[in-house]
């Protein structure tokens, strides 16, 4: 299957390229892991010795290829700071970010789908105008401001919700959801608008097509038409946007994870950057990129499966 | 500069065995045009008709070298375009001009029409502003547009017919030897069509042009052409002077075409006895049948038609047909 081959090649090239760039960039940063590891009071000799011990004095290209060789075998090396395998830390942190993103996306969809359907059923109406305006407004609130506002109102003013660190699922579902509610909401309240806008315009287009007219003329109620006939063909674009946004949201998740102290991969990356933990940075970047590219690949494949025209277009290219 | 060998035919345009194909992936190719040859002389219009997708536009673009054909040669005034390098071609290309189908799309929407018409002058390096203006104005007058009124308008402010006049004016500014009209009037209202066709006939004489007029509309072609070529699936199946072709078509496909459009003339034999079967109508152009390309649709098909492709041959003075069993006049 040429389409798949094409996509997979692109996938591996992207990963290789991104990891190389990250490696080079981190190498350019002043200060290195040996200094951090040595602690604030170590002597210069100690730092040099540690640097040698960690293999940080080898040329950057040599280190990069060593790392690539290991990564290909599933060995991402050890954190230079905690001395734990990078893989273990990532596996520990990844679920938190995934849970946050999925939770946020779910909340965004819960907001976006009904809103889009209400708006599309009467485009240009009062409700449509109000919701579109509200959407525009919330799109203009950066998620870090949204997070602060949510904390201000729900935690400080109303005191409804806790603003503490993450409660894992093992501490009970209710606690878990409570701890993710505000972080998820601060992403979702910005995110839903994009989904809403896409779905709304797609729904309006679909509702204008002949087969909907046909369905209406058969005597179906407008609700039935909306649910049975319009929603499914319109959700193709929505699916793509949900996929693409998953990738884009990682940046937003980083800030939200920092504000709400969630032990996710975004915060791990930020900490790793601050401490020059090269292998940890590499691991995080690789995972984030991997996540982004996999989601994209998945969306592409799903899209192609649903709409055969795409496959032909790609192969003509 | 390299000199390009001249052929001594005296025709403005000569096309020899042009072949155009597109790669569509998975090692499949579409043969859009295969082995087409013809000539057009000065002050002559060759009409090119055929159903949509038969390769008319591909042929026109191949003549323009946009993109160049896979094989075959294009001679303009005896110079071989297909042998030229990019630089030479760019200079030479202005000797053939094209007028397109979509009036709105053929003009840059962000440019006033006067400037659009003046563009070729810029390329030619006419620096003098007053000269440019006067030449643009006279050309606008020549295509029937009042310069005072239209010069400073944007394409979106003009009607379709006016846009086509602007396109024609722009094409003529390069002093071309040859004009290719690719479905140039099919997007226009019938009344406007007539005006543009008259204009085309007029400028052909005024500017001494050779014209290739491409259309799917037999009536329109009849009106402007001196000779007409009929295309089917990338090949020319019949080529004849206009009156000859319309009154006495010999290729079954031509007959089918004419039959579909024109009312049978009283006292003439009914042309409709060649029936078009429905089968294979959607046979894709990628899988061309061997033998005569028309044989799957031809009711007069014989065994030979499926085995051997007929060559375009002259059955009468100036009347060429590619058919093993031409529809005889008897």
């Amino acid at each position, binding site marked *: 299957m040429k389409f798949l081959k094409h996509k997979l090649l*692109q996938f591996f*090239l*992207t990963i290789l*390229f*991104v990891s190389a*760039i*990250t490696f080079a*960039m*981190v190498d*350019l*940063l*002043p200060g290195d892991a040996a200094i951090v590891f040595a602690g604030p009071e170590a002597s210069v000799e100690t730092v040099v010795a540690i640097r040698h011990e960690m293999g940080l004095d080898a040329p950057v290209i040599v280190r990069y290829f060593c790392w690539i060789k290991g990564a290909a075998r599933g060995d991402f090396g050890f954190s230079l700071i905690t001395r734990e395998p990078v893989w273990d830390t990532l596996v520990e942190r990844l679920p938190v970010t995934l849970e946050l993103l999925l939770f946020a996306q779910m909340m965004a969809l819960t907001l976006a789908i009904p809103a889009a359907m209400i708006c599309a059923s009467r485009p240009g109406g009062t409700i449509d105008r109000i919701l579109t305006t509200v959407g*525009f*407004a919330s799109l*203009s*609130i*950066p998620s*870090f*401001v949204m997070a*602060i*506002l949510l904390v*201000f109102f729900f935690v400080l003013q109303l005191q409804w919700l806790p603003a503490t660190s993450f409660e894992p699922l093992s501490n009970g579902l209710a606690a878990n959801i409570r701890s993710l509610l505000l972080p998820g909401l601060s992403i979702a309240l910005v995110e839903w608008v994009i989904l809403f806008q896409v779905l709304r315009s797609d729904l309006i287009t679909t509702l204008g097509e002949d087969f909907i007219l046909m369905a209406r003329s058969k005597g179906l109620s407008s609700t039935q038409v909306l649910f049975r006939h319009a929603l499914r063909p319109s959700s193709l674009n929505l699916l793509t946007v949900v996929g693409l946004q998953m*990738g884009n949201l990682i*940046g937003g998740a980083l*800030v939200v994870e*920092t504000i709400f102290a969630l032990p996710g991969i975004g915060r791990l*990356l*930020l900490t790793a*950057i601050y401490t020059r933990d090269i292998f940890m*940075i590499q691991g*995080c*970047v690789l995972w*984030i*990129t991997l996540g*982004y*590219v996999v989601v994209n690949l998945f969306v592409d494949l799903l899209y192609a499966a649903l709409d055969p025209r795409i496959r032909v277009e790609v192969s003509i290219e | 500069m390299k000199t390009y060998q001249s052929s001594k035919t005296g025709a403005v345009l000569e096309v020899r065995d042009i072949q155009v194909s597109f790669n569509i992936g998975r090692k499949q190719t579409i043969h859009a045009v295969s082995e087409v040859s013809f000539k057009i002389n000065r002050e002559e219009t060759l009409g090119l008709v055929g159903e949509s997708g038969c390769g008319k536009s591909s042929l026109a673009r191949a003549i*323009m070298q*946009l993109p160049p054909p896979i094989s075959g040669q294009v001679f303009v005034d005896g110079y071989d375009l297909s042998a030229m390098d990019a630089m030479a071609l*760019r200079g030479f*290309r*202005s000797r*053939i*001009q*094209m007028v397109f189908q979509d009036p709105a*799309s*053929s003009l*840059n*929407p*962000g440019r006033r029409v006067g400037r*659009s018409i003046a*563009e*070729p002058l810029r*390329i*030619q390096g006419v620096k003098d502003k007053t000269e440019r203006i006067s030449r643009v104005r006279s050309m606008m007058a020549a295509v029937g547009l009042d310069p005072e009124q239209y010069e400073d308008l944007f394409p*979106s*402010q003009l009607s379709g017919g006016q846009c086509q006049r602007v*396109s024609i004016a*722009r*094409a003529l500014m*390069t002093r071309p030897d040859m004009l290719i009209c690719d479905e140039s009037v099919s997007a226009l209202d019938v009344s406007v069509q007539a005006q543009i066709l008259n204009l085309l006939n007029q400028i052909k004489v005024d500017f001494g042009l050779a014209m290739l007029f491409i259309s799917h509309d037999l009536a329109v072609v009849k009106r402007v052409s001196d000779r007409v070529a009929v295309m089917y699936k990338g090949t020319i199946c019949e080529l004849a002077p206009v009156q000859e072709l319309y009154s006495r078509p010999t290729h079954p496909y031509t007959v089918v075409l004419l039959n579909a459009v024109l009312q049978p003339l009283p006292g003439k034999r009914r042309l409709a006895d060649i029936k078009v079967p429905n089968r294979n109508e959607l046979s894709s152009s990628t899988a061309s049948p061997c033998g005569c390309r028309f044989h799957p649709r031809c009711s007069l098909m014989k065994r030979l038609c499926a085995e051997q492709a007929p060559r375009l041959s002259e059955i009468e003075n100036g009347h060429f047909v590619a058919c093993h069993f031409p529809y005889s006049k008897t």
Partner: protein
Amino acid sequence: MKQVKTFPLLTFWIPLIWLLLVIFCAITAGWMPIPPPDIMDYEHQNALPGTVITFLDQNATGSMLNYKSRVSWLGTDPMGRDMLSRIIIGSRVSLAVGVIAPLVGLVIGGSLGMIAGYYRGFAETVITGLMDVILAFPSLVLLLAVGFYLGTNLWTLIPSLGVLTVPAFCRVSRAATLQLSNREFVTAAKMIGNSNTAILAREILPNVAVPLCVYGLIIMALMIVVEGVLSFLGLSVPPPTPSWGGMIAAGREVLSEAPHVCLVPATILFLTVLSLNVLGDTLRRQTS
């Protein structure tokens, strides 16, 4: 064919006026009768908006009569600095980032997109591949790397933010170019003897420029937000230059007892971003 262009009050004039006001303030900040943004008043920390602040006149000496007072319209921050001055001076950073970074992206991304869309083939494969890489790259790592390596100031921040906007502009310009390349006026231009470069510059560029610039407004909004995020994380312009994101971050520390310190700059940021988004959307509708 003809389109009646109307500019509605709510979605055109009001955002435009707000943006012009912000731009005006940013330019004329030096001549405005506002206290310097870095003067700390340890007696008036976190003062509420509208507080009357009494201060010792530096130029006079001696008796009690030398105390002057002024009204702090937007209050003071945790260091006793005037919020109004800081917001006005801070708008310079936001605007500089918001205008210049997208310009960098617009020029580079726009040209790359045009090349990809016009020439197709190998150039397109390479360019879209490159854009995929930039898109897949966690942008914060890039910004941090550049920030720490070259120092965090406006002139290292803007190019790196600019690079991050390249793919977006590239995509828009490629799509527009693809569409335009199939238009017949491009073929016509080729036939009158234009070179490819001339066609790109004279036929395609003017037509791609309008949607690109309109899109640029939306990217501008995004850049102002990103600058805010970076300031918030302490990775943008160094002090004493104030910036909106930095003010929000500083205000977060005192959110419970002096919410205005955080909420005022947040509101200003919101209004500016909203104006850009609304304006961009209106113009997009008008031009498409």
